[in-house]
C-alpha cells in the first residue's frame, strides 16, 4: 500500500462530520498556519512541495500563487474549481462527497496564504447533493469558529461560499468559471490578462482544483520538503486516479506519483487487470481530452522504457507516441471496443459542450462529429479520414481556450494510432456497421 494523503480516512464512519474529522487530526493545518506562520511562509511551503495543479494542466500551484498580483485597495479571491466534468474523471466528487472537510480545511489555509477574505467553491450543477454536503460542513465550521470573523482568535476572517454551475463543461475552464460565477454567460475570456491580475470581478484571483487545495493541509502540517520527497522528479506527491472502463476494479485510487503503470493497471490492489481475460487494446490516460494510446505504447514508450505514472513519463514521445496525465481519468478499453465509435462519442461531447464563442471550435467540433458519424455508420470515404485530421489541425491552437485543443487531440491521436480501423470502416461498411462488430487486425482489412 502506498502512502495516502487525501484518502487516508475515507472509510472512517462519520468522517463527513466536523467532530470525527477533527478527531482524525483535521484542521491542524488551519491552527498551525493561522497562529504560527505568515501567509508568505505558507506560499513558500507550497512552492517547496512542488505540488502541481491536479485539474489537468499540471501547472505548479506554488508558482501560480506567487504570480497573484497584490494591488492596494482591491480584494483578492480564491476560487476552487469543483466543476469536474471531464468524461472519465470523477475523483473530486468522491473527495467532496466523502470528506468535505478536507476541501474546506484546504480552502481556509490556502485563502489565508493568498490573503483572500472571501472564497468560492464553484461546483458542477449536476452535483447538487454534494453541494448540500459541503454546505452542511461549512455550517459546522461557522458554528465552530473555523469560518467567519476572527478564525480561532487569530484575527483572520474568511467567508466561504459554494456556488453551483448550470452543468456546462466549459465552465470548468478557469476564466469561463469566473464569468459564470459573476452571473454572466460562461464564455472563456481572452488571456492575457490572466486571472492572477484580472480575475473575479476584476480583482486578482487564484483558481485551483479541488484535489490541489485538499493537498495543501498535509503540506502545511508536514512541510513542503516532506511532500517533495514523495513521487519522482518534478511529479511530487500523490494523485487521485479515476479508473474506469474494462478493468476488474474500477474506482478512485490514490497513488504515489512514480508508480509503474503496469503495476497500477494489473495489480489487484489497483485496477486488477483487464476484465474477462480480454486483451488490452487502448487507453485514455488522463480524461477524454488527452490523446488516446494503444496498449503497447502505453505500457512502454516508443523507445521501450516502461512508463510510470508521472506527468513526464506519460507525455514522453510528445503527441506522436505519448499522452498526458491530465486530470487522472483513466479509461481502459479492451479489444471489443470500436475506436471509431469511441472517437465519435468523444467528439459528440465536445460538439455539445463548445461554448460557440470562437469560430474554429464552434464550427469545427460539429464538423468533426458529423464526419465521424458518417464513418461510424458506414457512409465514409477514404478522404474523410485525412479531412478529419486536417480539421482537427485547424482547430488546435487557434481557439480562445483549451477546449478546442481538447476536442482536436483525441481525434487526431485516434487516427494516428488506429488508422487501419478507420479504413476498415470505409472499405467494409456492411461489416463495420453490423451490431457488435469490431475490427480485429490487418487480416480483416485484407480478405473480408
Amino acid at each position: 500500500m502506498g502512502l495516502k494523503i487525501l484518502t487516508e480516512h475515507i472509510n472512517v464512519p462519520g468522517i463527513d462530520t466536523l467532530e470525527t474529522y477533527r478527531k482524525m487530526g483535521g484542521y491542524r493545518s488551519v491552527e498551525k498556519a493561522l497562529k504560527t506562520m505568515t501567509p508568505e511562509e505558507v506560499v513558500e511551503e507550497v512552492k517547496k512541495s512542488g505540488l502541481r495543479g491536479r485539474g489537468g494542466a499540471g501547472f505548479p500551484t506554488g508558482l501560480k500563487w506567487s504570480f497573484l498580483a497584490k494591488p492596494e485597495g482591491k480584494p483578492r479571491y480564491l476560487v476552487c474549481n469543483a466543476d469536474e466534468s471531464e468524461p472519465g474523471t470523477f475523483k473530486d466528487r468522491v473527495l467532496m462527497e466523502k470528506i468535505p472537510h478536507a476541501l474546506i480545511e484546504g480552502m481556509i489555509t490556502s485563502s489565508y496564504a493568498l490573503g483572500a477574505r472571501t472564497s468560492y467553491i464553484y461546483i458542477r450543477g449536476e452535483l447538487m447533493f454534494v453541494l448540500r454536503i459541503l454546505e452542511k460542513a461549512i455550517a459546522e465550521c461557522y458554528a465552530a469558529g473555523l469560518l467567519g470573523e476572527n478564525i480561532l482568535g487569530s484575527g483572520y476572517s474568511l467567508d466561504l461560499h459554494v456556488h453551483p454551475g448550470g452543468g456546462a463543461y466549459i465552465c470548468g475552464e478557469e476564466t469561463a468559471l469566473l464569468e459564470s460565477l459573476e452571473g454572466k454567460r460562461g464564455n472563456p475570456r481572452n488571456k492575457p490578462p490572466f486571472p492572477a491580475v484580472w480575475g473575479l470581478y476584476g480583482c486578482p484571483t487564484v483558481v485551483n482544483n479541488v484535489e490541489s487545495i485538499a493537498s495543501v493541509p498535509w503540506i502545511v502540517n508536514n512541510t513542503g520538503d516532506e511532500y517533495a520527497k514523495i513521487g519522482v522528479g518534478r511529479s511530487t506527491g500523490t494523485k487521485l486516479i479515476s479508473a474506469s472502463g474494462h478493468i476488474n476494479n474500477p474506482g478512485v485510487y490514490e497513488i504515489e506519483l512514480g508508480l509503474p503503470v503496469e503495476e497500477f493497471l494489473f495489480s489487484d490492489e489497483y485496477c486488477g487487470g483487464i476484465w474477462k481475460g480480454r486483451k488490452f487494446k487502448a487507453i485514455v490516460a488522463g480524461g477524454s481530452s488527452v490523446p488516446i494510446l494503444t496498449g503497447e505504447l502505453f505500457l512502454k514508450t516508443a523507445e521501450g522504457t516502461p512508463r510510470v505514472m508521472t506527468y513526464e513519463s506519460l507525455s514522453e514521445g510528445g503527441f506522436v507516441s505519448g499522452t498526458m496525465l491530465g486530470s487522472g481519468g483513466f479509461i481502459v478499453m479492451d479489444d471489443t471496443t470500436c475506436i471509431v465509435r469511441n472517437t465519435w462519442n468523444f467528439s459528440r461531447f465536445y460538439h455539445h459542450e463548445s461554448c460557440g464563442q470562437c469560430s474554429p471550435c464552434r464550427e469545427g467540433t460539429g464538423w468533426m462529429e458529423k464526419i465521424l458519424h458518417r464513418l461510424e455508420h458506414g457512409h465514409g470515404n477514404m478522404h474523410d479520414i485525412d479531412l478529419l485530421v486536417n480539421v482537427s489541425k485547424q482547430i488546435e491552437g487557434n481557439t480562445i481556450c483549451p477546449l478546442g485543443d481538447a476536442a482536436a487531440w483525441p481525434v487526431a491521436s485516434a487516427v494516428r494510432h488506429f488508422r487501419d480501423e478507420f479504413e476498415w470502416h470505409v472499405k467494409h461498411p456492411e461489416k463495420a456497421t453490423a451490431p457488435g462488430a469490431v475490427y480485429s487486425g490487418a487480416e480483416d482489412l485484407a480478405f473480408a
Partner: protein
Amino acid sequence: MAKITFDGIEVEVPDGTTILNAARKIGGKVVPPAMCYYTPLKGSGGKCRVCLVKVTQGSAKDPRPMPKLVASCVTPVQDGMVVENTLSPQVLEARKGVVEMLLINHPLDCPVCDQAGECDLQNLSYEHGTSGTRYEEERRTFDRQDIGPLIQLHMNRCILCYRCVYTADQITDKRVHGVLGRGDAAEIGTYIENVIDNDFSGNVIDVCPVGALTDKTFRFKNRVWFTKPVDAHRDCPKCSGKVVLWNRGSDVLRVTARKNEYGEVVEFICNECRFEKKEMSDWTIEGPRHIARASVISANHYELPVVNPQIIADLPESTTKELHLIPRPI
C-alpha cells in the same frame, strides 16, 4: 511608448495598444482582417480568430516567441515585440482554416442577401478563402426571426461576432439582446422574439459584418452597388445627424452611419435619422461619399465634382470679349 516590428516594418505606439491597432497605424496590406473586433465597442474582439498573427519575439526583455498564434485584436504590444502576419505561411494557413470554418455553415445566399457588395465575410473569403468547399454535411439552419418592424434577423448568416450584443448592451439602456444556446446552436436572440424598442437599436444593423441583421426599410429595394452614397447631415436632437444617404436617382433608399476604412462606425445615429428621414429635403448634402476602389460599390462612382477647366482665361482677349452675350444652356 512601445516599439514593435510588424511584418518587418517598425512602428511606435503607446503602451497597451493592441497589435491590430499598431498594424492599422502602418496601414495598407499588412493589416490583419477583423470580423469581430470593433473599436467603439468595449470588450469586443478575440472571437472570430481571423486576425491571428505569429509573435516571433515576445518583447525586448523576454525574447521568447509566443507558443501559439495570438489574436492580434486583443493582445497588447510589448516593447521590442516582433510580429509576423503576411510574412508567415503558418498565419496565412491558419487564417484560411478559420475562413473555411466561418463559411461551412454560412448559407452562401449572397445573390439574395442585402449585405452583398458591402459584406466583410464576402471580402474576407475572396481574399483568404478557397473556391470550393470540403463540407459535405447539411448546413445548420435557423428559422428567420422578426425583431420588430425595422430590423430583420437572419440567424443563418450570422458568424457570432457578438458586435450587436455589445452594441445593444453599451449604447442602449436596456439589455434585451443576447446570445442563446451554445456551440453551433448558439444564436442571437431577443428572448423571445421581443422587439428591440429603443432609439438607437438600428445601429445593430451597421455593426453587423454580414447580412444577419438587415434594415427592413431597405430589404430587397435595391442592390447596394446600384445606389449612390452621399454624405449628408441634419440637425438631430438625439444624435450627431451625420450620415450617409444611399440614393437611387433622387430617392433616398437607405440611411446609415458613416464608417471608416475598417468598416467601423464613426458616430452612431438614432433611429429617426435612419428609418424616418427618407426625403432629400430632410438633409443637407455634403458631397459624394468616398468608397474604396476595391469595393464593388465604387463601379461607376465618380466622387470628384466636375470642374470646368480654366480654358477661358488662357484665350486671347479678343475671343472672350463678348462671351457673356452668348446664351448658355441651362
